[in-house]
């Protein structure tokens, strides 16, 4: 099983304000899941908790059949480096580096950036941004930046891709491109995708939607093919 959440709880502050209220669900390998809900429903918190960036208050989280709560700090970072990709609302490209260097930056952690260079270029070609690989992020458009960010998230061939409002900052044409890239990645590379979005059009493109309301699962439905 790709991802197993067992009665996960996330609370903040003291006295605790409970954001995620005892959620349990499974996500199979290769699923494309959209997490939806109003702002404040806890959807971003859920994403960050599932992606290990934000530690759980209680409950168990199994990724790739591993209890990630039991991993050492070093192993957790390595796991994140090798198995996970992140895309945020903002691209967060490093402005000092060219696009292809940005894409390859996760690979520098384990010194594999030379080995993966041709794959990075291939990814960029696939995402129709091959022609800008040697430009700095300041010299390209917003849509292109987000696609570079996706290429960066995919360069380690991760099992999981976590996306937090990846289209939130884009016009509809660029947003459409991002979603179709996600579909393609999910289809061809079998990457498990968890995407937070509040745009129903994009959410409906995912194979499964989990709707959150006030920290509880409101609905969890799969698309009928």
């Amino acid at each position: 099983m790709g991802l197993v959440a067992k009665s996960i709880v996330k609370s903040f502050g003291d006295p605790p304000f409970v954001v995620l209220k005892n959620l349990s669900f499974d996500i199979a390998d290769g699923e494309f899941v959209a997490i939806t809900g109003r702002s404040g429903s806890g959807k971003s918190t859920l994403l960050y908790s599932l992606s290990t960036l934000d530690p759980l208050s209680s409950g168990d989280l199994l990724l790739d059949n591993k209890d990630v709560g039991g991993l050492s700090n070093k192993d957790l970072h390595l796991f994140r480096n090798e198995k996970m990709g992140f895309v945020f609302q903002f691209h967060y490209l490093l402005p000092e580096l060219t696009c292809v260097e940005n894409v390859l930056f996760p690979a520098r952690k384990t010194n594999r950036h030379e080995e993966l260079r041709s794959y990075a270029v291939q990814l960029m070609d696939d995402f129709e941004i091959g022609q800008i690989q040697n430009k700095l992020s300041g010299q390209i458009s917003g849509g292109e930046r987000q696609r570079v960010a996706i290429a960066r998230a995919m360069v380690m061939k991760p099992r999981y891709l976590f996306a937090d409002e990846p289209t939130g900052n884009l016009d509809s044409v660029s947003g459409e491109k991002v979603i179709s890239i996600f579909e393609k990645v999910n289809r061809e590379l079998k990457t498990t995708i968890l995407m937070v979005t509040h745009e129903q059009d994009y959410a409906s493109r995912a194979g499964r939607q989990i709707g959150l309301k006030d920290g509880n699962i409101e609905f969890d439905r799969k698309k009928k093919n």
Partner: protein
Amino acid sequence: MFFLAFKQLLARPLQTLLALLAIAFGAAAFLILSGMMLGFREVFIQRLINTAAHISIKAEESTIEEHSLDGSFFPGDLVKWIVPPVSHDEPPHLEYAQGWFDRLDADDNVEAYAPQMVAQALVSRGKLSRTISLIGVEAAKQVKATDVQSDMTVGNFSDLDKGGFQIIIGESLAQKLGLHQNDTLDIVTVKGNILPSKVAGFFNTGMDQIDDVVSYAPIHYVQQVNQTPGQVSQIIVKLKDITLAKRVADQWAAMSREKIQSWDEANANFFTVFKMQDMIRYILSAVVLMIAAFVIFIVLNMIVMQKRGEIAILRSMGYDAGDIIQLFLSQGLFLGFFGGLLGLGLGTLVCLYIQSIKFTGGMGMARGMDHMLIAWHAYFYITAFLLAFLSGLVAGFWPAYTASRMHPIDILRSEGG
């Protein structure tokens, strides 16, 4: 991480250059200050040693006090003087100079020694007269034990041994009295005797308090003038190793009644001044480097604040807190390292320039002091570089630490995600 650190520095050429220059100026300031202060000091000490001798052995001035003579006149009695005896018993001189000569001859540490008889006198020529300190010497021994020969500007010091009443005086005194070599001048003793003597030569030590006052004459004449035949008032000793001066002096002092001083004890007041100079040097350099460190600190802090989002993405990529520290700390270290190197280069150039500045006449500077003096020591370079590097380390640490403590989630939330 070094790759990104380097790129981040290059992306801000102006800030990087500014920080580099600030560090460089700090390191250069230390180098230049040290070079100038110690350059002057070394020459000064050299002259001090050469003129003052490594160790001097002087007679302890013994005075007669109220009850000093009780035992001689009234042994065993309790004495009440109506007019108590007072005064020196005789002019200060070494009780048994020959004993010292034998001891010094046998001592392995001693390179050479020279006995001296010092007397106060007047020199007069026509209507002009000056008080001098007339030092009676054996020229051959004096030349071996001191650097006096190299201070000679006219004549040979050893000419004093050629016989006749000859005298060697300071060049500045000669100017004041209008004397040339082989002129005759009168020496008036404290007792009022007038002895005509021939000027055999001039010396110049560069120190007015010596050149104006000290004159050399053959020792037996001075003993005559002073009416103290055969007496020696002090012995000047030159050691094979000057660094032993203090130890050897203490050793000798422990087994004799004489006043034995090493050169550094005799000039203790200068060393106090040197200590203060050192303090000023370190404080000044510290201030400059603190400013430099502050510049680095501000630059790095600004970068960290601007790069919060990028720190978050780096963390999500699997770079841990240590990697983030490395990213920013290495920038501080880089600035410290290359700023330090730049400073050494800059400091060297400025020192070379300062060294080439010539004094133009009338400054009362002596031989060998016609240009600015700079000391060159490896440890200046090492210290200057370490100071620069350390300030980079210290300045880089706090921003790096702050950055590493930033939690990616907090950043993402506050950035409006």
